């Protein structure tokens, strides 16, 4: 059952988040220029797991594998890349919503992985990174023997 209780700390945290956001807006490293650097928030990630793998997916339309760098450093996975701006010479923009510039995002992996066997594929702008879990991180089935 879902209950909502008044919690003073939630209110405080809400206020703190507002302040944090304010400061990020002012001091954050996202200038209004074309080559804005976005550290940490882009791309959005979906992460899931099965018994043997951790899988990470990101939507990166308009990029090719050569534009993307996937780096595994111990327990951290970094996805880096950049997207070029469309031609602006002699044209006028009616809409300009598609972001351009460089991005980098790092996530901490929940379990040890086998860095040698990481694979990345890019299909219609969807990047999928497959990270095999290290043998010690895989679930083990324990044989239960009947007592003699």
């Amino acid at each position: 059952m879902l209950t909502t209780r008044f919690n003073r700390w939630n209110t405080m945290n809400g206020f703190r988040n507002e302040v944090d956001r304010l400061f990020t807006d002012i001091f954050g490293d996202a200038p209004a220029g074309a080559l804005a650097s976005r550290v940490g928030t882009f791309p959005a990630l979906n992460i899931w797991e099965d018994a043997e793998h951790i899988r990470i997916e990101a939507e990166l339309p308009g990029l090719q594998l050569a534009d993307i760098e996937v780096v595994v450093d111990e327990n951290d996975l970094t996805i880096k890349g950049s997207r070029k701006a469309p031609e602006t010479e002699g044209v006028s923009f009616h809409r300009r919503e598609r972001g351009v510039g460089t991005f980098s995002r790092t996530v901490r992996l929940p379990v040890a992985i086998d860095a040698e066997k990481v694979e990345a594929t890019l299909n219609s702008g969807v990047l999928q990174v497959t990270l095999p879990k290290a043998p010690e991180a895989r679930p083990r089935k324990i044989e239960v023997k009947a007592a003699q």
Partner: protein
Amino acid sequence: MSTAMERQTQPTEVTAERTRTRPTYTPAVDIVENQDELLVLADMPGVKAADVDVQFENGTLTIHGHVHERQSNATRFLRREYGVGDYHRTFQVSELVDAEQIAAEYVDGVLKLHLPKVAQAKPRRIAVQGK
């Protein structure tokens, strides 16, 4: 500019309801005009070219992209920051567009639509004759 790169995670409302209820997302677009055409670029990752439906009728351009589920319902997500669903967007195009000549291509998750202007909508330079 770069904030547009963050996809909306909330499904948006579609004017004409579809029979199957699935989340529908608004693709981010650039619409660029030059002398000869309007160029529409729409970010629609994860679509197959055959599942993109583009219609142009009475100055209304409709883009719809059907996305097949990439993960099963049983998937154990550790983090889920974006939703996967269809793309839908409609534009009123005021420029006089030659509907017969509209061309579309889908490359690397981006839909590219060329809407050529009809001859009378192109800027013409009128030569002024002197005596």
